[in-house]
């Protein structure tokens, strides 16, 4: 058996391979569930109901999908240039930190102005946090995977420090938490979900437009495919990379602002809730395409929310839905091989 790289693969084949892998993963999960004495189809159905089964639940799922969608878009920009930004968590938190600073200190400002300032602060916070690994990569060639990963934990510890220390709420009855934001600093709701969903749609459209129709977007795509070709075309590769990564981190920072202001109504180390990591998976699964990121993120949010439902309904702990997530992912990650290569018998004629 030898493996040969495919030159061409039809869209149908790709979808088929992915579907088979999802099916296989569900079958494995079913075995697992049956072993525990549950009826797999019942459980899967409840998962779906828990995620989408009522207006309330749908709103909850969509609320959860907002940060996933936006973070994924942010990470997608970096990934398109083969810059492995796994610092989404940290960029979200630093964005939340910057936005919270404005929220806590300037709450007398009129609401629209305050929220706008917080929005930009969020972008700056995340963007600057991503600038560090970007500069290091572009000028020193340092491995961005590790740096962005480490910066996550620095950010988490920083926010925790603020929570326990200088920003600790004196009215918090001794609990280590930061004061809740004034109503002025809280995102309003539209249709029962905080305004973040409109921001999210806007960001998706804006970034899709940027990548498809502007010069900078064109440059990002070319650099991601072939740095040599980009150089030969006269592009200033370093500038484009740094600018794109700042954008990537900035978008994650906006998520931080939205979560802090719209969901948590304060700053805490929980604001990022693992979205930075989950988004890496959703981005990768979506094949770095903005249009696919939305449904995939909603599905993932559904998995998360559905998981807490089956916890109360069947006594199956939340962690089971994490395991299910991971199983689906393993199979899809593995299926990528079959999309890229095909197997042929070893005696096949050699081709240059």
């Amino acid at each position, binding site marked *: 058996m030898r493996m040969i790289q495919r*030159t*061409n693969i039809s869209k149908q084949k790709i979808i088929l391979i992915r579907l088979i892998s999802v099916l296989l993963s569900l079958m494995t999960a079913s075995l697992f569930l049956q072993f525990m004495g549950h009826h797999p189809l019942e459980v899967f159905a409840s998962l779906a109901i828990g995620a989408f089964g009522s207006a309330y639940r749908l709103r909850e799922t969509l609320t959860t999908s907002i940060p996933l969608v936006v973070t994924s878009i942010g990470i997608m920009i970096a990934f398109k240039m083969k810059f492995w930004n796994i610092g989404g968590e940290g960029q979200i938190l630093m964005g939340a930190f910057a936005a919270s600073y404005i929220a806590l200190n300037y709450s007398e400002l009129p609401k629209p102005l305050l929220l706008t300032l917080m929005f930009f602060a969020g972008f700056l916070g995340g963007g600057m946090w991503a600038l560090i690994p970007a500069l290091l990569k572009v000028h020193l060639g340092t491995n961005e995977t590790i740096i962005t990963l480490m910066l996550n934990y620095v950010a988490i510890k920083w926010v925790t420090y603020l929570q326990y220390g200088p920003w600790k709420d004196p009215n918090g009855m001794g609990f280590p938490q930061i004061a809740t934001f004034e109503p002025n600093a809280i995102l309003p709701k539209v249709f029962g979900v905080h305004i973040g969903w409109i921001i999210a749609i806007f960001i998706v459209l804006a970034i899709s437009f940027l990548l498809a*129709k*502007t*010069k*900078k*977007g*064109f440059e990002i*795509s*070319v650099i991601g*495919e*072939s740095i*040599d*070709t980009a*150089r*030969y*075309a*006269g*592009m*200033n590769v370093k500038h484009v990379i740094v600018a794109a990564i700042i954008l990537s981190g900035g978008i994650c920072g906006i998520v931080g602002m939205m979560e802090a202001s719209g969901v948590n109504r304060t700053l805490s180390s929980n604001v990022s809730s693992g979205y930075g990591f989950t988004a890496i998976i959703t981005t990768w699964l979506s094949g770095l395409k903005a249009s696919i990121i939305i449904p995939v993120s909603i599905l993932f949010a559904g998995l998360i929310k559905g998981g807490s439902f089956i916890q109360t309904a069947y006594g199956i702990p939340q962690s089971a839905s994490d395991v299910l997530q991971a199983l689906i992912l393993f199979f899809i990650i593995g299926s990528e091989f079959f999309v890229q290569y095909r197997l042929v018998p070893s005696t096949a004629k*050699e*081709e*240059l």
Partner: protein
Amino acid sequence: MHKDIFVKMENISKNFGTVRANDAVSFEVRKGEIHALLGENGAGKSTLMNMLSGIYKPDSGFIYIHGQKVTFQSPKESIQMGIGMIHQHVKLVEVQTARDNIIMGLKNSFFVKKKKISEELRAKAQHFGLAVDPDKKIYNMSIGEKQSVEILKVLYRGADILIMDEPTAVLTPQETKELFVIMRKMAEDGCAIIIITHKLNEVMEISDRVTVLRHGSTVGTLETKHTTPKEMTDLMVGAVTDLSIKRPKVHRGKAVLEIKDLVAEDTDHVPVLKNLSFNLFEGEILGVAGVSGSGQKELCEAIAGLYPVKNGEILYEKENLIGMSPRDIIRRGISMSFIPEDRLGMGLVASMDMVDNFLLKEYHNQKGPFIRRNTMVPHCEEMIRRLDIRTPGIHHPVKQLSGGNIQKVLIGREIDTNPHVLITAYAVRGLDIGASHNIYDLINEQKRKGVGILFIGEDLDVLMELCDRIMVLCEGEITGIVNSEEVTKEELGLMMAGEKIKIEGGEAS
């Protein structure tokens, strides 16, 4: 078979798709012999040796090693039969010592007996005259030392047939002398050595016999002491073939590019361009001949602003291009395209369509932050017509096109930018006659428009017919600039091998 015939390749043929890389090649090497394998680029030398080292399998023919018929399934089997290949680019682990690199993969004692093995290696190295310090780390070594480690490695593993692929390409003249002493010692010891080279003077100096390959076939095996460089060149380049390429007479204009004393070094501070001086005129095609790796790529990149220049000037309309950004150089009307061996890497983005690839050189001229793709569509369609490009559609990724058509897209795009200077390297690499002629016609059209064209190519016949003048590069130096009507193919071959014959026909200004 005589036991002294270590290697015998009989009627070996190898095809890659429709390309016949080796055609009934027969060739043998004896014990204690240094046998040179000579030929131009694409003559089939590397392919032939890759079959000996187990990377490729012959489509037909036989290989005998030490009289035994063999079929290698993998490089490991070739190594086991005593064949040691020294590649041009060393395969060593930089952070490990020479000793570790030599012993890795061998079945030894559990604990590495560092002292004992180092001593053994030192002794063996001394025997052959190799300057190898077993305890030294590879990253601390010069290229010559690294090559010595590779040689010691194959000898330590029991090789008695050595294949050396252009070993002197990376060595200084002094190191080359030392290498030859080592090679003679190995031959004395009974090894059979095959050296792939294009350098005639080295063939004369070190080899006992030489086999010349041309277009995949053996054209002759000569005793070195009975032959001359001229005879070898004749065999290498063959008779002149008439390709019927038109060469329109165009009145030459002013010098559009003036290169003065251009010096460039690579990252290891090895000089790659050594005091190049020449002019390119409007309305002329200046061909650049030379063995690959003589500095053509670096010259192209230097003019385009993509390679750091140490000294000298590149004047375009009296303005020095050195220090300008690549974008500015493109803006001034200088177009550079380079077709690498894998044909895709540098000019085109494989997964993008023709429109986007055409945009690569144009988009920065469009005003505003947005990209307008529809303006490019008529350009693409025009090029498809003129060059007869076979494509499923202008919106299909270019990687779906066949190799020749991909190159047409690349050249088409460059011409579409209406350059003032057109630099094109290996534009017809791998193309068939019809496609090649399309490209020559395009280039001639540009010449009639008054564009100054620098045409880097491999095929001497093409250069002699298409170009007005030909400049020959060898190891970063100009060994000759001649009028194509006044030079013979043998003279070109000799200049490519390093002989400085004449510099005429063009330095009027």
